[in-house]
């Protein structure tokens, strides 16, 4: 692709003194250093936003997994990237990784391979919490949220977060300076934002240095949006998230009252 000038650069991971780091390949001969192995997941799309803002007229290729492709769709939908200025190069994940991530679509759409990993549908983590009583649930979550060191890791790594001004840094909504941050509001703000945007990649939970199971929370809101409005983020490019527009009343609205 690079030689044919179809794209001006390819964003992928490169092995840099033993560690995989994101790298923008501009020469075809450099591509031999590119790594696309199983152990490394990285939100490349997040870096692509920055590059695309600097060079809006260049077409950039990007190596994507299933989750990253969904993130790409979300970013295109929210006008963070320009249509036609991104070329996705798909790689499929192994069954092992899919099981580990509990991924429900471990392959991008345009990959042509015979033995793709099977999607995993597993909601045991949510059911586990829902079995508990109200007070136990509250104690569980407050215990987990209390570990937060406010590193913003979950937000920074999230391939679906892109706002230049973040709610979590708004002094009126979350009091600044406290440690741990104001709980549970800090995590709930993020969870609400993820409701119609979460692509369920699980990077937030991997990035968390304190091991807070934030993905459970996001999976839950994602599931409730799916149950209420039948919308799944990252699937169709033309469909907008139900919480991002007013709506036309054409569907059954959740009723008022209790």
């Amino acid at each position, binding site marked *: 692709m690079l030689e044919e000038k179809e794209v001006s650069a390819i964003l992928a991971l490169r092995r840099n003194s033993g560690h995989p780091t994101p790298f923008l390949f501009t020469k075809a001969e450099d591509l031999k250093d590119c790594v696309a192995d199983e152990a490394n997941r990285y939100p490349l799309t997040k870096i692509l936003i920055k590059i695309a803002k600097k060079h809006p007229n260049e077409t950039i290729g990007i190596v994507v997994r299933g989750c990253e492709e969904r993130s790409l769709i979300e970013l295109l939908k929210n006008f963070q990237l320009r249509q036609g200025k991104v070329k996705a190069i798909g790689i499929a994940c192994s069954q092992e990784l899919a099981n580990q991530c509990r991924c429900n679509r471990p392959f991008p759409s345009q990959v042509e391979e015979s033995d793709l990993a099977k999607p995993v549908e597993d909601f045991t983590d949510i059911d586990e919490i829902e079995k508990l009583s109200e007070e136990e649930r509250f104690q569980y979550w407050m215990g987990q949220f209390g570990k937060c060191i406010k590193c913003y890791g979950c937000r920074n790594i999230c391939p679906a977060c892109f706002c230049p001004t973040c709610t979590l840094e708004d002094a009126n909504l979350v009091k600044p300076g406290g440690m741990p941050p104001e709980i549970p509001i800090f995590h709930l703000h993020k969870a609400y934002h993820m409701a119609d945007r979460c692509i369920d990649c699980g990077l937030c939970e991997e990035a968390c240095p304190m091991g807070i199971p934030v993905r459970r*929370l996001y999976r839950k809101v994602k599931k409730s949006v799916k149950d209420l*409005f039948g919308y799944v983020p990252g699937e169709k490019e033309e469909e907008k998230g139900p*919480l991002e527009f007013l709506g036309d009343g054409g569907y059954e609205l959740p009723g008022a009252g209790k």
Partner: protein
Amino acid sequence: MCSGRISPHFILKAFQEGADGVLVAGCHIGECHYGKGNFITAKRVAVMKDLIQFIGISPKRLRLEWIATSEGNKFAKVVTDFTEEIAQLGPSFLRPKKVAKFDTGKKKEGFLEARR
């Protein structure tokens, strides 16, 4: 204020500050002054209820009602109903244990004097 203006963050903030219940009241569906402001409120509150239920705050503490400007009786009834329901549920887990002490004297007087 249009009920479409009620950001979910406001609801969360109220719970965080120790509110026992949050009542969101808007115009009836189809009677919105702005056309369709209350559609988004309905969607937001539905998601919000699921979220607070999951972390252990009873979804009964958040209520959405459609009350028109002329429905004074309904408003009174809803508020009474809701207050009773909340009283049955008891105080929220998030309510701070210590009651905050308010500055009763000096600052306020000083402030008033400065204004005079």
